[in-house]
């Protein structure tokens, strides 16, 4: 078959963007196959496992609601890795920023109580969480910029410090003596609980997550700030030569990333936990790293991947009940997906079908 030169160029133009869709999807499919083999080895029927995951994640309106409830904090924590990644920083302090955001929101919520209208009270909580989470990750960015401390390791250490801090506070100064199940803070006033979308169990956190992802997308792809960040991420030395304020960019983008994870903490506190205790540390932060990498740090793709992973997380219980597989199965699956997606990164530009061919 021969294609006329002009339309041939157009044809290959179409193939290149396809590569960015094809490779992650292929990676997901390969991960599914490997996971199937793993399930078979563990003595479960892989087709049955797939069917259960699908049913528990997307099989019914109730399943969809479970999935979306889990997806909303994931969208927010993923941005904590995705935004700094555009500047070439690998931040993995999502869990810590979430915890600190939840802590700040709880303190703000307990302080204002029912003294202000609920909308204003929730707004205060959200602002407190955004600032606290933002500053927490900005610390890692500042250490990177001013002291050359590796931001991956410092943000990781900050996770442990944040968790120790809330454990300390709920065991001591903030402990609610009347709540005996586990050391916790006092409960938030009912007026401050986050409502649900009409006709569903899904809380407003989903709206927060969607809005944050869209804003992040516009910010990165459509503004001067985003352009500067992407330029600096591509080549930091060239950016310095071009006079871009690399330090300010680092601090700003770390703050934004951290504030999203902080907001996730507020959502979890106001919508799910209603008080702060160790249950806040529920791996949404680490799963967010996975979402960010799978979506290749694109905030719009993050929405989709967060929903997918939310579905996988929602199916954890059913795997245990109907296939006798431990909870950790979901973690294994996440690991396999992550590894496959990373491997697919190495295939960019290596598959001939997607390459522009010289027009003869």
């Amino acid at each position, binding site marked *: 078959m021969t294609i006329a030169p002009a339309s041939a160029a157009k044809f290959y133009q179409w193939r290149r963007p396809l590569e960015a869709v094809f490779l992650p999807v292929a990676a997901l499919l390969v991960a599914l196959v490997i996971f199937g083999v793993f399930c078979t080895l563990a003595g479960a029927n892989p087709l049955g496992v797939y069917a259960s995951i699908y049913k528990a994640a997307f099989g019914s309106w109730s399943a969809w609601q479970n999935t979306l409830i889990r997806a909303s904090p994931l969208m927010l924590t993923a941005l904590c890795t995705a935004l700094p990644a555009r500047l070439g920083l*690998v931040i993995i302090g999502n869990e810590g920023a979430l915890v600190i955001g939840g802590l700040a929101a709880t303190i703000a919520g307990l302080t204002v109580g029912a003294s202000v209208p609920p909308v204003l009270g929730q707004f205060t909580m959200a602002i407190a969480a955004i600032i606290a989470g933002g500053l927490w990750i900005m610390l890692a960015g500042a*250490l990177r910029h001013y002291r050359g*401390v*590796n931001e991956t*390791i410092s943000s990781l250490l900050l996770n442990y410090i944040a968790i120790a*801090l809330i454990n*300390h506070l709920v065991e001591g100064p903030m402990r609610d003596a009347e709540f005996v199940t586990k050391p916790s803070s006092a409960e938030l006033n009912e007026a401050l609980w986050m409502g649900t979308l009409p006709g569903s169990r899904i809380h407003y956190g989903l709206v927060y997550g969607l809005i944050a992802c869209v804003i992040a997308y516009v910010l990165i792809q459509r503004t001067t700030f985003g352009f500067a960040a992407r330029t600096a991420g591509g080549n930091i030395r060239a950016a310095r030569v071009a006079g871009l304020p690399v330090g300010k960019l680092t601090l700003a983008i770390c703050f934004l990333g951290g504030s999203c994870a902080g907001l996730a903490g507020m959502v979890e506190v106001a919508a799910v936990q209603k008080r702060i205790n160790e249950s806040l540390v529920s791996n949404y932060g680490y799963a967010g790293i996975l979402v960010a990498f799978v979506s290749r740090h694109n905030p719009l793709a993050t929405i989709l991947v967060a929903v997918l992973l939310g579905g996988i997380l929602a199916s954890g219980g059913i795997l245990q009940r109907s296939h006798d597989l431990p909870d950790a199965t979901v*973690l294994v699956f996440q690991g396999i997906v992550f*590894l496959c997606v*990373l491997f697919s990164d190495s295939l960019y530009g290596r598959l001939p079908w997607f390459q522009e061919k010289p027009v003869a």
Partner: protein
Amino acid sequence: MATEALGWWGVPLGILAGTLRGSAPFLFVSLGECLTEKSGKINLGLEGTLLMGAMSAYGVAYLSQGALGDFWAPWLGVLAAGLAGMSLGAIHGWLAQQPRVNDVAVGIAMIIFGSGLAFFLGKPFIQPQAPQLFPFQWGAWSSIPAVQSALKVSPLFLIGVAIAPIMQWFFRSTRWGLYIRAVGDSPEAARAMGISIFKVRFLSIMAGSFLAGIGGACLSLYFPGVWTERISSGQGLMAVALVIFARWNPLQCLWASLLFGGAQALGPAFQSVGINAYYYLFNAAPYILTLLIMIITCSPKRTLVGAPGALGKED
């Protein structure tokens, strides 16, 4: 005499005891990470390796108890831990060397995968009690139980202490040590010498993961000596920071591990004399210490003294 009668002496004794008990995992993972990073790649996934090692050691020791007896079964567990670590290291070593693949990202994926696999396979071993490694009783001379228990030393700890100078000698005086340093410092020069960069890094990462797996065995077969999903408190992650602190020098990894083991013992030591108020904050001491050390020793202007030249660079 009871512990209370020791009064405030209980604190330094508790720290000493905690250092002897708790630094072995740090020592093994930091030596493993040191070996890996010397070849120019980072393995952030040692946390997963550590958990996998802890689980394999415990599981194998438990299952082979009947066939091998209480003394040898844990040692088979130690070997299994090393091999399990090595298998994870093989995945990391291969994947992290593919073009355009970031070794830090692979490390994060390996944490998720390794810990997931360890929790998955380790589920049946949470309840049963596996045989433990027999410690050396260096405190037998004392009549004070607290001193006796403080001076119990794990054989793995002693092996780790021996490996540190051996690794130092290995890097400095052997052909293979030179290969690893060449690949880590200047891959072009190594390539010109006809060394396969892929092979050297692959083997270094596998050997490093073997050591990290044994670090996991220290946790499950000696102290705390159980298998639970919360057995590791981030020792695998701190390894990376420890190696920076130790300036990529195996002997200094030893001192750094002792320091971290001691820092980890602060909380329990103060708790033993009745100070509970800041238990969790004392537990965060190793992390805060790591962060402070990195803030003090790093600089944006120059690379660190002793850092392998190719570390963190695309090749």
